């Protein structure tokens, strides 16, 4: 019998504790223990990326990370992005540019594209396609995903521009 471990991690800004077997994968912790079923599991070979979440700001495949490895870390899942009132720019991009069909891959794709935009706020089409290497979409043919990411990049840039002008003019204080 192996020993269970107590872990404590922040998930979408909320501290969560769990007593788990070391073999529990982060993807299963999120889905089965914390009921955050937006993170999907689409393969056994660490290739599809449907399980992608952010751990301490880095995009990772949660099916290939043990939950114990996330002890003390900050995890962001698709549930932590935005809500229907206030979509995250990446969600807005996917919404407006039809970046999904069945939607199975979408949580992982959106999170991984946030990873891209963090590093490269203004990616070319080629750079977006390169960054999509770690996810598989069986529906869209990727073209609409590329458009969605480009749109999201634009929304983020516009948002930042608005923030800058309100700061410099003192508006909205």
């Amino acid at each position, binding site marked *: 019998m192996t020993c269970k471990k107590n872990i404590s991690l922040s998930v979408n800004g909320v501290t969560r504790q769990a007593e788990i077997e070391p073999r529990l994968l982060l993807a299963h912790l999120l889905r089965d223990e914390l009921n955050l079923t937006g993170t999907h599991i689409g393969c056994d070979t660490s290739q599809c990326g449907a399980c992608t979440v952010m751990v301490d700001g880095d995009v990772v495949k949660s099916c*290939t990370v043990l939950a114990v490895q996330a002890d003390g870390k900050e995890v962001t899942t698709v549930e932590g992005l935005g809500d229907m009132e206030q979509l995250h720019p990446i969600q807005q991009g996917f919404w407006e540019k039809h970046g999904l069909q069945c939607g199975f891959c979408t949580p992982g794709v959106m999170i991984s594209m946030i990873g891209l935009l963090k590093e490269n706020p203004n990616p070319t089409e080629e750079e977006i396609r390169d960054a999509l290497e770690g996810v598989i979409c069986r529906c869209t043919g990727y073209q609409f995903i590329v458009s969605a990411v480009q749109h999201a990049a634009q929304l983020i840039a516009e948002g930042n521009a608005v923030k800058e002008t309100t700061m410099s003019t003192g508006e909205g204080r």
Partner: protein
Amino acid sequence: MIPNAFDYIKAGSIEEAIQLMQESDGEGKFLAGGHSLVPLMKFRLTNPGKLIDISSIQELKGIRQEGNRLIVGALTTHKQLYSDALVKENIAVLADTARTIGDMQIRNRGTVGGNLAHADSAADLPGVALALEALMEVQGEDGKEVIDIDGFFLGPLVTALPETSVLTSISFLIPPSHTKSVYLKYAHPASGYAVVGVCAIAGVGEDGRIDFVRIGINGVADVAYRATTVEQALLGELPTAESIQRAAALAAEEGEIGNDLFASEQYRRNLATVYTERALSRILL
């Protein structure tokens, strides 16, 4: 897929990791990024009784220069490796190679030490490490030792690293400033791993003849190897299409060339030759 049950413990220092491994009676495995180990455990191809997590040991992190070498901490991720200013400036081919590994998510987790300690010939770093005359800095029960990369890879997934030893850092040669280098990979279309990967570093002296050449080849053989016969065939030669072609024809000489459903032995031999020729032409012509 769920791994077999195991115990998990985090090591706070290299000494503690070694001690925990000694106490595990052969049941233990070190865990770094987990991106080779966890997939194998999910398929139950390996079933360690205990994982000793070394990922938070500070001494295994960081990149620094010492003379004509870069010392890369074993826990450096592929992403950190290709983003690091020292690496990009001094050994561009190491950064470029790290950039071709897997995908963005894999590069965020996988580590240089894990990649080399795992000794998968289809991985990308073994060829580059051979060409850059890597020195594997190791700490174990009996203290520190350095293992030359030429004697490090013993077989598929087998290295000269003693079971209770930690690979602490890898020292890579900064190639002479007159050389150029490249890593060319033919990736398996499904897995993205290298069917062949050739790292070539070469330079031409003032007399117009090749005076420096290193070639490391991964993917095609059971174990990554340095193609010294190709190197010898080129040293002192003029860099021409003919001399490169003649030398590249020897690219499969030193490898135990593998064979699987995707790529036959003959096809792999041919890939080794063609990719070596292309790599050398890229930097010498």
